């Protein structure tokens, strides 16, 4: 966090609010992204992630708050939504759903998109093969989106978002719906971009994705920011170090076992599984040896545990 206060942030969002009717979708959210940083926004469905991104893109006008950009090469501070078009010159966007042009092949998709930024033909001639190569689509330059797999389409969307060499990438759930291989390839490319100095604002509800890619996270719930920090630091701050999951017939009864409860700092139940959160799992695991009929899983606490602790275990289907 200290690097944010010392260097000028690329994007600073302050006190952002948005209501639809009587529902407050975003309620006083503030955050900043330093140059070269990958910031993750996580939260359950309906937490206000997409609305926040839309406001940062100038597609939705906030009721209150400020969104200020300081892009290298943009000549001075710019503010959304007033300077929307000037800001978009320096942004790359991968939206939740692909908006690729079905009538154009991969190379044409990049060229047509580059023209919207007013990029010269000679620059595009040089950049398009590089972008196709980067997104592992070099062999698919002549293929139309309908001929591509889900992962390829997402990578083409990423390549398209990079056509203007943006200072900041906004990615709204970039790997939703992809198989593990495609997700890993996408992550690898995004990591390369961060290493190359591109800043990224990413929304996701895959905790492994957030943990892997993001230097810092903010957690949104019901439109409010409820936590902020580096993934490991957040876990250390909010959670016990270790988790023992116990499941199988009769596992649920363990939550009322006073002897086991003493060995854990916190006990939670989700469906058929009992979660014991503890600083040291060994006494608990020894005690559970008496119940060989139950299956146990011993693991370090992760971001998913944090997420569930902060936002609760109930299903959100109101998004």
């Amino acid at each position, binding site marked *: 966090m200290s690097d944010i206060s010392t260097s000028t942030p690329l994007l600073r969002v*302050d*006190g952002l*609010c948005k209501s639809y009717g009587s529902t407050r979708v975003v309620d006083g959210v503030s955050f900043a992204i330093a140059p070269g940083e990958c910031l993750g926004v996580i939260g359950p469905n309906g937490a206000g992630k997409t609305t926040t991104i839309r406001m940062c*893109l100038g*597609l*939705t*006008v*906030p*009721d*209150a*708050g*400020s969104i200020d950009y300081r892009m290298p090469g943009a000549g001075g501070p710019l503010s959304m939504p007033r300077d*929307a*078009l*000037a800001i*978009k*010159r320096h*942004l790359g*966007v991968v*939206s939740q*759903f692909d*908006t*690729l*042009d*079905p*009538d*154009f092949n991969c190379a*044409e998709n990049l060229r*047509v*998109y580059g*023209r*919207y*930024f*007013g990029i010269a033909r000679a620059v595009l001639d040089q950049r398009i093969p590089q972008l196709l190569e980067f997104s592992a689509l070099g062999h698919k330059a002549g293929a139309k989106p309908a001929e591509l797999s889900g992962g390829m389409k997402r990578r083409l969307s990423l390549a*398209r*978002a990079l056509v*203007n060499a943006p200072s900041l990438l906004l990615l709204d759930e970039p790997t939703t719906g992809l198989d593990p291989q495609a997700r890993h390839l996408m992550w690898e490319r995004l990591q390369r971009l961060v290493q190359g100095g591109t800043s990224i604002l990413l929304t996701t509800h895959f905790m492994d994705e957030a943990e892997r890619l993001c230097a810092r996270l903010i957690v949104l719930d019901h439109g409010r920011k409820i936590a902020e920090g580096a993934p490991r630091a957040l876990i250390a701050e909010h959670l016990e170090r270790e988790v023992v999951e116990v499941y199988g017939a009769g596992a649920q009864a363990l939550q009322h076992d006073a002897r086991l409860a003493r060995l854990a700092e916190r006990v939670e139940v989700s469906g058929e599984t009992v979660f014991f959160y503890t600083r040291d799992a060994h006494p608990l695991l020894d005690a559970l040896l008496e119940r060989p009929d139950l299956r146990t899983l011993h693991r370090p606490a992760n971001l998913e545990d944090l997420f569930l602790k902060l936002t609760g275990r109930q299903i959100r289907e109101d998004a």
Partner: protein
Amino acid sequence: MSERMRPPSLWRPPELSRAWWPVFLRNLLVWRKLAIPSLVGNIAEPLMWLVAFGYGMGALVGHIAVDGTPVPYILFLASGSICMSAMNAASFEALYSAFSRMHVQKTWEGIMNTPVGLDSVLLAELLWAGFKALFTVTAILLVMLALGISHAPKLLVAWPVLLCVGVMFSAIALIFNALAKGYDFFTYYFTLVLTPQMFLSGVFFPREQLPPLVHALSDWLPLTNAVELVRPLFMDRWPEHALRHGLVLVATTTVAFWVALALTRRRFKA
């Protein structure tokens, strides 16, 4: 810092720039891939109307008086139906095709993440549908020239006028595009808005045949004003009330585009 923000008015003036051009070019590039089949579709039907009605009915009707001058029925029909073709081509493009790009393919959403605003996208669609109308009209004009229906030098003036007619109907259609929830909605537009104009604007028969009240109403139909401008040019004469009809075209286009823009902004909450 956090002053209360007020969403800008939907009716604010259009923010227009040269940004419409790459969007227009995009549509042109897609169309280029399908131009030949679409050419056949665009001109086959109007030509069938023209040949079947013009020569078939023309043989029965003979000549029709336009402002006191008798003209062959086929010339009367050709000069009216070419306006109808401009109307249909522009409307089809600004409804079905624009709706595909806006709603189904989400092409507009992709574009709006670039320095091209919604206003420029809509302007590009307006001009694109006008261009499609001009293309259809040009093909039909060439066939009419080949058939010797008219060789009037003033056809050169009719050509840009027909472009304006296309742009006008595209502006009107974009209003309904902004309101549409699905393609079905456009059927109403074609049967309730365009078909009546086809029959009330003097395309197939002189408006003098209409009952007085309907005749007076038909003065204000966009297609009537288009026909009144184009028909004399086919007869190598200047339209009698060129300024009035021209103003109706310009005013209708301006008002319709403004309304379409406001409704499209509302649709995108921009």
